[in-house]
Each structure stands twice: as structure tokens, then as C-alpha cells.
């Protein structure tokens, strides 16, 4: 436990709360006010804002630090984030690739399958 007084610790929570609020409203305005013309760019900035907010809340609310008392927690968290990225990016990658290769209409697919059936398995 640190030696900080009650008020300094409360201030830390207030800072965390205020910046989280600011980031949420900022990404909302970014989307609704159409500040960027490209939807792709907007999504990337929104995701960056979400990541910054994640970092702010981890430090201010969950008291995560790289060194000292919570080192074990940081290490397991880092590994989990890695697994999370593998799951999310990996799934999107594979499914988009499949989608691309399956890029034909239902009728065309039907014809294609008939062709394949004629060839025999």
C-alpha cells in the first residue's frame, strides 16, 4: 500500500474519469459530426481513442503498473492481449480471405458445384 493521502488518490480517480469521459465524447463527435470524410480513417482514430482510454483506465482505475506490486498482473495481461489480437485479427483475416475466394453468386456457385460433381471426387 502506498503512503498517498486520500485526496491525492481521489484526484487520480477524477483524472481517470474526466479523461475517459472526454475520450468517449470525442470519438462520438468524430463519428457523428463526420470530421473525417473517410469512414476507414474515422474507425482507426476511434480505435486509437479506445486504446488510449484502455490505458488510462488500467492505470487510474485498475492500478496496473509494469514494475513492483502488480508485475505478475501486467505480464499475464500482456500475454492475454497478444492472444486477443491473434483471435480477432486471425479470424477476420481468415474469414475475409474465404469471403474473397467464395466471391460468386449463388447460381454461379451452384453451377461450379455441378461441374465439380461431374468430375467426381
Amino acid at each position, binding site marked *: 500500500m502506498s503512503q498517498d493521502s486520500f485526496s491525492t488518490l481521489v484526484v487520480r480517480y477524477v483524472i481517470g*474519469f474526466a479523461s475517459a469521459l472526454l475520450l*468517449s465524447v470525442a470519438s462520438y463527435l468524430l463519428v*457523428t459530426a463526420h470530421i473525417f470524410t473517410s469512414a476507414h480513417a474515422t474507425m482507426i482514430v476511434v480505435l486509437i481513442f479506445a486504446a488510449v482510454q484502455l490505458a488510462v483506465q488500467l492505470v487510474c482505475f485498475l492500478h496496473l503498473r509494469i514494475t513492483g506490486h502488480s508485475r505478475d498482473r501486467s505480464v499475464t495481461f500482456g500475454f*492475454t492481449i497478444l492472444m486477443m489480437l491473434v483471435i480477432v485479427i486471425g479470424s477476420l483475416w481468415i*474469414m475475409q480471405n474465404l469471403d474473397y475466394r467464395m466471391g460468386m453468386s449463388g447460381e454461379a456457385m451452384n453451377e461450379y458445384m455441378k461441374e465439380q460433381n461431374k468430375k467426381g471426387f
Partner: protein
Amino acid sequence: MSQRSTKHVIEKYDKAEFGFWLYLMTDIILFASLFATYMILRPNNADGPTAAELLDPSYALIETIVLLASSFTCGIAVLALRFGKKTLSIASLIFTLLLGATFLVLELSEFTELVHEGHTWQVSAFLSGFFTLVATHGLHIFIGLIWGSAMLTYVLKFGRTDDSMRKLTLFSLFWHFLDLVWIFIFSIVYLGAAL
């Protein structure tokens, strides 16, 4: 003797906190799978309504602010109890639960409205993914509310003890974690829908 028991309490505290942290890490994997599923299924709306037609980012912003405030008061509740301010801790905890309940009511009224308009989760792959992801988070919030009510009675009864500090800290970890998950639901599902 007292030193040894203090050390014992700290070890027990650390182990409990780390163990609970590991549970939260597995929960991240659960939500990661649901997020991946949602993002993949989103374009497949089976000629039904799209995300842009159904989801309202302004409504989600209100939900975000309510849950964020709830997360903040939960942190204050732990802090207050640590410094022996029992009344402040209980007041913050009550606010946390009220705001959490408000969030759940907002979410459920959004769901009922969707279902009444015929947009159930059987309609399309997009809606299946949407309801699974958002309702899993809502279910966590519901369990959190039950847990929080139990914590409220515990703190009311025992005040600041090593056990109540440990239990309340674990609850706050859970509650802050749920707020973090919601930030990503807000960004990816609701703001993503409006693009």
C-alpha cells in the same frame, strides 16, 4: 505474532487478487471471440435491417457515460473504505449499484424495442452476433449487480476489515473490467454502425 498474521493476510490478499485477475484474463478471451464473431457476421444481414439502421450512437453514449460514472464511484467506494470512511464508501457503493441498474434498464429497453419491431436475433447473422455480444456483457453487469448488493450488505455489517477490503477490491476489479469491455462495444458496435 501480529507481524506474522499481517504477512499472512497480505499473501492471502495478493493470491486472491491475482487469481481473480486470471479469471478476468479468460473473460477477455471470451469477449475477444464474441467481438471477432460480430465483426465477421456484421455484413451478413440477410436482406434485413443493417447496423446503421438499428443502432443509435447517441443512446449508446448515454449508456457509456452512466457506466463510466458507475465505474468511478466504485473506485471511490474502495478508496473510502481503505481510509476507514465507511459512510462515504457505502454511499458510493449505492451510487455504483443505482448507475449500474440504470445502465441495465437502458440496455434492456433498447433490446425490447428491437424485439418489438421484429428485429430478433433469429433474423440475421448480424443480429445474432449483436445480441450475443451485447447481452453477454449485460449478463456480466447483472451478475455484478447481485455481487455488488451482497458487498453493500457486507460493508454495512462489518465495516473496514481485511476481508471486506479484499472482497470489495475484487468486486471493483470486475466492475472496472466491465466498463472497459463496454468502451470497446461502444466504439466497435455502436460507433462502427454509424460510419
